[in-house]
């Protein structure tokens, strides 16, 4: 628990490794097989959503949900544009406008710290800082980056504007589980339990 006080003693800094440079204009496909699989998924989604309100939004939401790293890769965005006939610029504009979409791969476990007003007044900033300390990114600033993923892709820490669980503030979600009225001590033990399970 004590390391929480520290700004720097919580292990080596683990900066994100930048994505390998991609060739301009071409999808980052590893092989043709995975591309055709992805295309099939998108085609199915596009057919399902055709004509419905908010079709593009729904396609992107569902596509992201199905992705192993819960993100929309450049290849995926290009394929969506191609298959739906929407301009790539519009697909990109939608994908970057909404906070739900991730353009970077997400960790296996997601720690979502609610930064709603009720949580803020009950100390959620300290929870966010604690999570970042624990995972080796003490200098994280929420106004600069929407999320942070550890280099081993085990954890992603992100914030959400409001979970709508305000009566139980502060609230943190770890994957699907919601922890209400959580303290920094409890958050640390949750993180450590996951680490133990994953044998890190």
């Amino acid at each position, binding site marked *: 628990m004590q390391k929480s*006080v520290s700004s720097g003693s919580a292990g080596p800094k683990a900066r994100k490794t930048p994505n390998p440079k991609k060739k301009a204009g071409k999808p980052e496909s590893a092989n043709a097989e995975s591309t055709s699989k992805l295309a099939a998924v998108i085609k199915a989604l596009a057919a399902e959503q055709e004509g*419905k309100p908010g079709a593009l939004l729904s396609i992107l939401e569902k596509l992201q949900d199905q992705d192993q790293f819960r993100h929309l890769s450049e290849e995926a965005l290009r394929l969506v544009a191609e298959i739906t006939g929407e301009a790539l610029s519009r697909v990109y504009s939608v994908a970057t406008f909404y906070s*739900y979409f991730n353009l970077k791969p997400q960790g296996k476990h997601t720690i979502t710290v609610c930064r709603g007003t009720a949580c803020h007044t009950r100390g959620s900033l300290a929870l966010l800082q604690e999570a970042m300390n624990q995972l080796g990114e003490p200098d994280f600033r929420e106004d600069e980056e929407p999320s942070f993923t550890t280099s081993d892709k085990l954890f992603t820490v992100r914030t959400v504007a*409001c979970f709508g669980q*305000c009566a139980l503030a502060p609230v943190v979600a770890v994957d699907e589980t919601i922890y209400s009225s959580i303290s920094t001590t409890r958050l640390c033990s949750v993180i450590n339990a996951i680490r133990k399970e994953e044998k890190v």
Partner: protein
Amino acid sequence: MSDFSLQKYATRGLKTLKPSGPAISVGYGTCGIGNGADELFAALQKAASGSKILVKKAGCFGFCAEEPLVMLYLPKKPILLFSKAKASMAAKFIKALEDEKALDKLAKTALGKISRWNFRTSELVFGEGWDAVREWNEIPFFKGQEKFVLRNCGLIDPESLDEYVSVGGYTGLYRALSAMKPEAVIDEVKASNLRGRGGAGFPTGIKWKLMAQNKAAEKYVICNADEGDPGAYMNRNEIESDPHMLLEGMLIGAYGMGATHAIVYVRAEYPLAIKRLQKAIDDARKAGILGKNIMGSSFNMDMQIVSGAGAFVCGEETALIASAEGKAGRPIPRPPFPAQKGYRGMPTNINNVETWCNVPVIIAKGPDSLRSIGTEKSSGTKVFSLVGKVRNTGLVEMPLGTSLSEIVYGMGEGAGAKKKIRAVQTGGPSGGCIPADSFKAKVDYESLAELGAIMGSGGMVVMDQDNCMVDVARYFVSFTAAESCGKCTPCREGLSQMLRILNNISTGKAELKDLDELERLAWTLKDAALCGLGLTASNPVLTTLQYFREEYEKHIIQKRCEAGVCEDLFEALCENSCPLHMNIPSYLALLGEGRLEDAFESTVRDNPLPGSMGRICHFHCQMRCRRETMDEPVSQGEIHRYLADTMYKMGREQAIWKTLVQEKKKATERKIAIIGAGPAGLAAAFYLVRLGHDVTIYEGHAEAGGILRYGIPAYRLPKDVLDKELQLWDTLGVKFVFNKRLGKDLQLKNLQSSFDAVLLAIGAQGDRKLGIPGEDLAGVHPGYEWLEAYALGKAGKPGKRALVIGGGNVAIDAARTLQRLDSEVTVAYRRTRSDMPANEHELQGAEEEGIRFEYMLQPEKINGKDGRVVSVEFRVMKAGGMDTSGRPRPVATERSVVIPCDEVIAAVGEVVESAQFAKSGIPIAKDGRLQPNPITGKLLDNLYAIGDAVTGPATAAEAMGLAKQCARAIDSELMNRDAFATLFREFAYDMTIPEEPKTARQCRSRQVPPGQRQANFQEIALGYSGDQARQEAARCLRCDIRNNARSPWR
């Protein structure tokens, strides 16, 4: 309308809604599940398997912090409510449903009961019984609530169309389709006075009429369920707990407006709401309530859900439409309004979830059903999410026009006695902060707008003394700046510039003129932004500037954040909470390194009375100590007492005092008079004389010390300790003139003309009167006056039976003194023990010594015989609702008692005696307190004031804190310099974070046992041993070790 009938659904629904056998339901909303409702439900199913008990799910009843809520059903009996039910209790619940005796026993622990329920579209009687259990609406949280929108929430199974129909659901739609023309529907909504519940409050009927007038082949109704407003979640609950009411409202609206399609735009963060709404849509379609020829009529309509992907701006209707079209959600200028040209260019009407949910009742029961609730201009109810620093959190639905104080102190039951509520934030990022002294305001559209806030969608976040108002503004602006779509310049650029200024203020980098710039930007935004987001985004800034400007100024001028939120402005929370801003981590660390002299020097520079204050302080430092989250706070004050005692015992303080004398600033030739030699006057003198000024203290008594000498009894503070510490003032060359009283021996005008500055530190020593008959009888004494008389040896021997009235420290000091003088002492107080303002430690001591305490007694009359007191008559009180102090208000009962006594001490508070300044032009509050500038302490001209005379009765530490601040201001004004920081010294000490600390409770100093305290005034607390002090110092978690820590006086 051929042969469609709701009857079969209703019959089926009633079987589970009001079951003919025992049943149990679990509150199964997101809040409930977050608290373990899923496990509880599974455990109940297991426990009930093989029995006839029906286990069912319900929505949320609104008391979210108390979830999971369980309801027990038995035929002909009221529903029993239980809060915070755990899976481990499942067997107990099931057993109780099978065994009447067990149930009667369990009923005693129930939160409440529901005998009958008004579903608004129908009423149901569940049964009678359990007289000792209160009815649900007698529970403080629900008292005064009017469940109109939440009419079914928590009672019906949200996934059951049958149950919705069984309480009268879809009868409104049936009436509209079978018996009303579309125009008639709109007329009724208009007549109901319903206004938009999304925040702006536009009359719904008028909006619908505009839409109805536009003819087109395709027309849309949209429900805005993109509740992006942080701190608000009622829409989530409304959909999760009763999705069919939304469906019905939208269908009725669509029929009235001639719409052909319906869309519900729900944010993706609400998965359960989406799931239940989808099920409701599917079930309704199957039942012929949605789709083609609804209910056998010619009306066709289908409905689809769009899940929003998280963008606050999508709450703006044109942005929502863009988003529903699959684009980025950027707003467009209006006109054209959506009613003319909306979704896919077609006429579109958008309403908030709650607006739609009001409609079914209006149509089923007529416009009066709504109009009879609320005020004339704002009819009906509003659901608020009452959250933040308040005891009861959850959803409250109250008639519009209810006052904020009814909500915060009534339903919310305040924040407890230890914390003071400062403000309520309504309307989220578009709303404002309303200060506690405006809580009389009614909650309706117009009243909130007058205060600069808005009703918004219904977020209501309560903030207390630990919340910084600058931080609140910064928080909201950083939110809106991030959520701004970037389309219009005022919003995009304005918000980022406002955020820059607010960041500067909260990190101590701003200047006063930045506040003007901030205000100018805020008004520009209000005038020139494109959409609602930008137009309202400055409200949080403008309201905090209006109501809490002083707090902004303290951040800028003093670089202090009293709430302890803006981390760049303090060293550690203990330091920030200490009114003297003692650098606590410094002396703890120095002691830990065995550097006793340095530790003492650090202490004495911050607080010249470390031994005395270490004995009697309220220890503000402990109230925010982070160690408390682990086990107990660090006993910082006890440690500086140890430092002082040890140094004095060895005579080693002299060397440090000598250092202070040597480093005195060059004589400034400025003369300063201080009136009053109490803690405030002494502290001011200590700093002013070291700055080189010629300081004279005038004191009415024969010796210095004020309340430390004449108020606090010797068993708490031995006078030799005080005498020892007071030598420092003589050493430093402060002049004392004793036995001189202001207004009698001294004239303020003369002092002001012969001194460069005059500082009033006269305290608050007038005793408040009881205001009851018999106060003039012999043997009745005001509390402080009596303590002072005793200290001066003038009190005389008290009678055998002494009665002390009051619950503060003066009352307890008087009681324990009387006890030592051989009286039998009773303390009578009008509230409960836990509501007493006296220090817990003192209270415990008094109890140990055998003093009798009588609670809930309010004095009414003092009886006398031959001019002397013989007894006091009391009214017995009981606890009422919460008052603004966060404690239950004492309410008179029928009963009264008489306590016989020979001596009465009335210690019910003190007031500032400022009558003599009445004609001097000095700003004085109604209650007599002097009102100087809060930062400099300046009253007018060269006259200043500090201490209790300014704050009213407060702690010695607070008085000394103001003295410090004022000494700095006087020096700066007289000399045009800022030399204050040079009075302190920075020590180098270990800056590594302690290793994993082990749980260790606070060290307790040795105490003289109660048996040995009789008939003497020997000091009770004997202080730490060296080992104890070092052990205690090592408990510090060192919050000061961080990059942005700011030393207190630099």
